[in-house]
């Protein structure tokens, strides 16, 4: 019974759906004043039902499978994408003592699951039988290969500092001191996160003006809904990773609770959105250059810094 609740309610399906609806609405409402617009307005308080209606509309619309595609590949990949994107939530310590799978390899499992996702997206593009989608798929894979290197190295820095891959232990050992030591790692993680989640300035794989939303081009109805759900579940996994690894997860001022965890995730979302409103897209070549010339070497330096800090401040611990 407990497993069922965890799979379907928290941190499973219902939680992900709720998160998607609320975050989607929040993104739209937050972007609107930056654009000098109003955003969703008419349905519900401050237009909050709008996303619910949009998503339910997408769910009930016909899902068109174009001629000439492999229908199994085309329709299976969105479901697979959602499942894989939801799995990392099982390894995250959401509040004190609450983690679905408490394992010594929690961090490893999480980054591996985050790393599989782009490959699934590549296959959706590959299966669409459309030149723009294929180009989008190629861009996804190119970008993830170059961004994941620094993403993984940044994500591993707390593990190196505390000497464990267990997420619960990492959160329990975190302190103000470790936050300061891990701060460069957090910055690297955040930049790599933009690349991994295809957010500006790295929204190259779904550049609508260049390759017509890339891998999303042929998708409609339920399948499109699935891909969007996967995208937002992926947001959740990556934000939760950032909050747990660098910002002390549920630990907060005064009391420890899931509330603080949520606020931390929201803060990262706000940073991402603000960048989205102010930065144009860069090109694939510039992204590759940035990644391999700056991100990867700096990540290596960061690892060296973590080892040094560990020797200086955490000896005997």
């Amino acid at each position: 019974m407990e497993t069922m609740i965890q799979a379907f309610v928290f941190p499973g399906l219902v939680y992900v759906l709720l998160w998607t609806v609320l975050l989607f609405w929040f993104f739209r409402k937050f972007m609107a004043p930056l654009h000098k617009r109003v955003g969703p307005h008419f349905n519900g308080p401050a237009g909050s039902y709008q996303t619910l209606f949009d998503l339910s509309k997408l769910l009930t619309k016909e899902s068109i499978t174009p001629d000439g595609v492999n229908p199994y590949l085309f329709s299976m990949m969105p479901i697979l994408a959602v499942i894989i994107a939801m799995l990392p939530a099982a390894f995250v310590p959401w509040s004190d003592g609450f983690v679905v799978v408490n394992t010594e390899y929690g961090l490893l499992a999480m980054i591996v699951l985050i790393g599989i996702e782009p490959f699934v997206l590549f296959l959706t593009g590959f299966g669409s039988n459309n030149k723009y989608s294929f180009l989008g798929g190629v861009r996804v894979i190119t970008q993830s290969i170059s961004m994941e290197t620094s993403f993984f190295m940044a994500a591993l820095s707390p593990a190196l500092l505390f000497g464990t891959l267990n997420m619960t232990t990492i959160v329990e050992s975190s302190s103000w001191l470790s936050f300061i030591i891990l701060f460069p790692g957090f910055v690297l993680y955040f930049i790599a996160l933009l690349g991994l989640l295809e957010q500006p300035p790295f929204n190259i794989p779904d550049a609508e003006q260049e390759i017509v939303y890339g891998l999303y081009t042929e998708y409609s109805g339920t399948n499109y809904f699935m891909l969007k759900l996967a995208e937002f579940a992926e947001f959740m996994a990556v934000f939760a990773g950032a909050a747990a690894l660098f910002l002390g997860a549920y630990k907060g001022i005064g009391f420890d609770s899931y509330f603080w965890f949520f606020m931390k995730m929201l803060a990262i979302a706000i940073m991402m959105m603000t960048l989205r409103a102010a930065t144009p897209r860069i090109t694939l070549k510039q992204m590759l250059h940035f990644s391999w010339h700056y991100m990867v070497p700096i990540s290596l330096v960061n690892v060296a810094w973590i080892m040094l800090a560990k020797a200086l401040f955490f000896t005997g611990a």
Partner: protein
Amino acid sequence: MQKIKDILTNFETEYVEDYKKVWIKTKLTKSSDLLGVAEALKAEGLRSLSTVSPTDFIDDGVMEMNYFFEDLISKRNLWLKCDIPRETELCKIDSLTPLFPSANWHERESFSMFGVVFENHPDLRPIIVSEDFIGKAPFRKDFDWLKHEEDSLKNMQLIVDAFKEEQATNEINLDPDSSETVLNWGPTHPASGPIRLKVHCDGEEVISVDPDIGYVWRALEHLVTQKDFVGAIVAVERLCFMDNINSMTGYCMAVEEIADVEITEFAKWMRVLLGEVARVSSHFMGLGGFFNNMGLHTLGMWNMDTREFFLDFLESYSGARIATAAIEPGGVRYGLDMTMLDELQKAIEKFDGNIGEVEAIFVKNPTMKLRAKNVGIITADEVLEFGLSGIVARGSGVKTDIRIDEPYAAYEQIDMEYITRDAGASQDRFVMLFEDLKQSVKIIKQAKKHIEDEVASGAFNPTKDHMVKMPKKLPKGEAISRVEWARGEVLMHLVTEEKAKSPYRLKMRAPSFNHTMMLDYLLKGKTLSDIPLIFGSLYICQGDLDR
């Protein structure tokens, strides 16, 4: 100017005369001299061919060819005419494309619309017209539009079949060992508008680009001949709805010249005022579009916000926000209620309040510079060669602006200057657009102040001075007029018959035509990411591309 006349003495001409301040008008006796004259003119410095405009005189049995040569540097221009027979088999003339690359598409257009065959043209394919019009020369006076429309189902089938056949074969013809593919960038692409670029690419790299235009062809140049002189303005303003005022101004100037009517000083100032408001509204869209093409919609939204205030003024004046139909032969359509200028004052205040923010965040945006600094570079030489104009020409350091070169309306009394940038890259065209926008607002302020002062002193009567009486029928004649449109130079060539109630022929030379010609040249060897950026920076409007 004397040197051009000297050149012309070497050839047989019917007449050589001065026309306006910066033009010489001449007619060659023999069309076979054309190539020789063109060569001499090019050596003299008239390096741009603005456009080629055939006029079909069906009663005389001749096709009169009009060539407009321009020298963007020293502002000397030549209007060259020559007659060729109008029978389909004999309707031939030497192509000027090998000498003047800017003639390329203009000659293709004449070929599609009038059936004029240009000998030695490197690429004489039909352009603009859809498959059902190919080989039929729709702009000839003996073309039966009604009969053509009767078979509209069959015509549509022709278009569909041709497209399907092209899609089925376009990649079969490519080298099977290469990974080259053909992408249809448009006409239903998020950033393209109604134009199709056939992009040959190898992965991300662009090999060549072949623009396919004509998706919004409305045959405006034919449409105006079906209307009277006043009714024609609604066709002329649809050149591009972003800046409709200035295209109407150009047309009205040509009509007034043939009718020999001088409009009032007040109407001239109103044309400046309205024209600059329209330019501002167009530039706002252009600036926003540039950033939209890089995936950032914030500037577009901000600009929309400010632009609404300028459209409010147009609405209070003419009743319409976009298609205003506010300029008419003989002046401007409506009198001015001075309270309307309060709307304009609001818009100017809004503009002044926002422009600093826009400059700090977007014009100096480091990521934009990273993207746009080194792509789409056009040198000053290429500007002359390809006959580019407007912000594209000025972004490459060529000092050309019709408002100063050949002042019309009240621009003579306006205090303005050439704004140029040197590097000619996409970024420079964007900054150029921004600077041009600021200058436009300055001109609006000047014009507004002048109108207010003159009305206060009693020199202008804003409710009565806006129109002078125009004759119902126009004499036989022809005229050209040039205006600095938001996107570049618009040249109108108007021909009328005796006792004319409607234009006999109107040629509209629109700047986007030349700018689109550059796409293949600019995009070769670049990546797919650069297509929307360069396309956006050329400030192309599909409306005036197809007409």
